[in-house]
């Protein structure tokens, strides 16, 4: 603690970025959302309203099993709500048919799963450039940024302090968990998606690395105006974010919880 990131005044910066944005419509909006894992099972999530402004960094907190990963899955279009709407970047994601939703996710959302994010048989670099193979939009953006997709991947890996010289030759399965998490984040960031959804990407990092990691992540996201929704059990990290949201606050009192 006590780094630049944690000392930053949340409201001021967020407000400044908001002024820059062309539209004040929320980047992420959830309305009357109901989600149950199985038909007929009790709802895990009952959220009447939750919005995130463009460029805002939200820290989502809550006890284990409370539904944080589930909510991220819904925001990323990985899961589909039983009722209600999830809107990302002005598009009602939850209403799109499967293939369109996949395309939308590929173009606009960088997603980091809670664990095991890498394709085991691809190199570190190939793992990072993967989204650019499936999304022309992100490929173009990465190329515009660094000249080529490869170079942009290298830039991000350097940026997240992954030593390419020694790590690139190794299979990704031999990377430490923390290194794997950083590769996954580099992959989520390549091609500057509008929204970064990260599920505990810092769980395996030591305190020092964690804060530097966040710092670097935020520098990158500020440069591209990326909205960040971030889950962590490390409550102390919350101070670095524009807003800390406890999942329990989002859940409607009329819900089962």
């Amino acid at each position, binding site marked *: 603690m006590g780094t630049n990131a944690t000392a930053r005044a949340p409201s001021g910066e967020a407000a400044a970025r908001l002024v820059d944005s062309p539209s004040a419509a929320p980047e992420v909006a959830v309305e009357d959302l109901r989600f149950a894992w199985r038909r007929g099972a009790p709802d895990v999530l009952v959220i009447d309203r939750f919005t995130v402004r463009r460029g805002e960094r939200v820290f989502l907190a809550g006890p284990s099993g409370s539904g944080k*990963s*589930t909510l*991220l*899955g819904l925001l*990323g279009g*990985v*899961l589909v709500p039983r009722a209600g709407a999830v809107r990302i970047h002005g598009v009602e994601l939850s209403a799109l048919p*499967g*293939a369109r939703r*996949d*395309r939308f*996710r*590929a*173009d606009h959302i960088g*997603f980091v*799963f*809670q*664990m*095991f*994010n*890498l*394709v*085991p*048989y*691809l190199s570190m670099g190939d793992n990072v450039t*993967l*989204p650019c*193979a*499936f*999304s022309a939009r992100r490929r173009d953006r990465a190329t515009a940024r660094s000249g080529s997709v490869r170079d942009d991947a290298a830039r991000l890996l350097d940026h997240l302090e992954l030593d390419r010289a020694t790590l690139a030759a190794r299979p990704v399965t031999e990377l430490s968990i923390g290194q794997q998490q950083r590769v996954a984040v580099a*992959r989520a960031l390549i091609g500057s998606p509008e929204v970064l959804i990260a*599920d505990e990407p810092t769980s395996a990092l030591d305190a020092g690395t964690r804060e530097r990691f966040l710092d670097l992540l935020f520098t990158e996201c500020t440069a591209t105006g990326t909205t960040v929704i971030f889950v962590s059990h490390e409550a102390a990290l919350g101070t670095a974010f524009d807003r800390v949201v406890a999942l329990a606050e989002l859940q409607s009192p009329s819900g089962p919880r």
Partner: protein
Amino acid sequence: MSVLVTVARLALRSLWNRRLTAGLTVLAIALSAAMLLGVEKVRRDARQAFADTISGTDLIVGARGGAVQLLLYSVFRIGNATNNISWETYRELAAHRSVAWTVPLSLGDSHRGYRVLGTNTEYFARYKYAGDRPLTLAAGKPFDDVFDAVLGAEVARRLGYALGDPIVVTHGAGEAGLRNHDDKPFRVSGILAPTGTPVDRTVHVSLEGIEAMHIDWKGGAPIPGRRTDAEAARKMDLEPRTITAFLVGLDSKLALFRLQRTISTYRAEPLQAIIPGVALQELWDLMGVAENALRVISVMVAVTGLLGMAAVILASLESRRREMAVLRSVGARPAHVFGLLMSESATLGLAGVATGLGLLHALVLAARPVVSRLFGLHLPLAPPTTLDLALLGAVVLAALAAGALPAWRAYRMSLADGLSPRV
């Protein structure tokens, strides 16, 4: 880089990553393909070898009966004739104006399980097999003495005979309580080169030799008290009274059917004349059941190999759910995941088929010298036939079909697999 290239590259990388299981799968498919093609090749080559048993002969004439039976005893040395042909009839038909040549055949005796064939030296000039190949002597010469014998390659090899060795002929073939013609032993004068035909399993002697052996015999048994020795027999009139069958060559094929009819309506005794090619075909058709059984077995082996492949892919899929979810999360659509697994199956299938083809060719190359030396059979190393290619195509298609099930499962698997950290 297009998405298709990415998917293909992912498929190759992922296979390489699992090269041990992938290799075993390829091997299983290769064995299936080699088995399918091998059985097909054996069937084809057997059929060819079968059709090659006798050629250049236009008609085979014997006592009236079944065409297949006549073919079996006259060419394959299997079974016995029901009746003989009189020497007079043979002389008369041999002199027919359409007939270019004849070779008389006299059967009924054996030597240690191998049939003894009485004939004349024309046999060595006229008998052809495998298209137009004549019999050749590996050692010695055709018989010129009454008690000379020329051995087929297998007889000489199995029984370990060399030129000059004595041979005692047994009366009859195969039945118990046989009498030996031990008073008139034969001498090996020649040994034939292997032909891959029943000739290899035949002991050839002259018609006079057959006659000499049976001087003191009547109705299949020796006449008690009479013993003419070999030297005395030599001086006697050894013109045969009957033969079992004879081969006919014509001047012109145009006369074939007319002569065939003339023979089958021959007044003096009931005869039949068969066209070897037609009778061979008839006999081969009789063996169609065995042929089909062979095919069924090879198809079952192929199916086993492919099921193995499906099982391997399906099992690996369970441990790859995570990988699929990750691919989906970075933008791969279900169709891409489906395509990824299908390209893996296609790669396994193609690699398997190519390996199988190589395996079979290697096997044929390795077996060639041995088969040629032992059986006189030439194993052709032909490029795959249309049927072979169709079979191989079917294996690849079946590999794709087998891969479709796991691919479909992966297609249906939810992206949400990535959310719950199951390993």
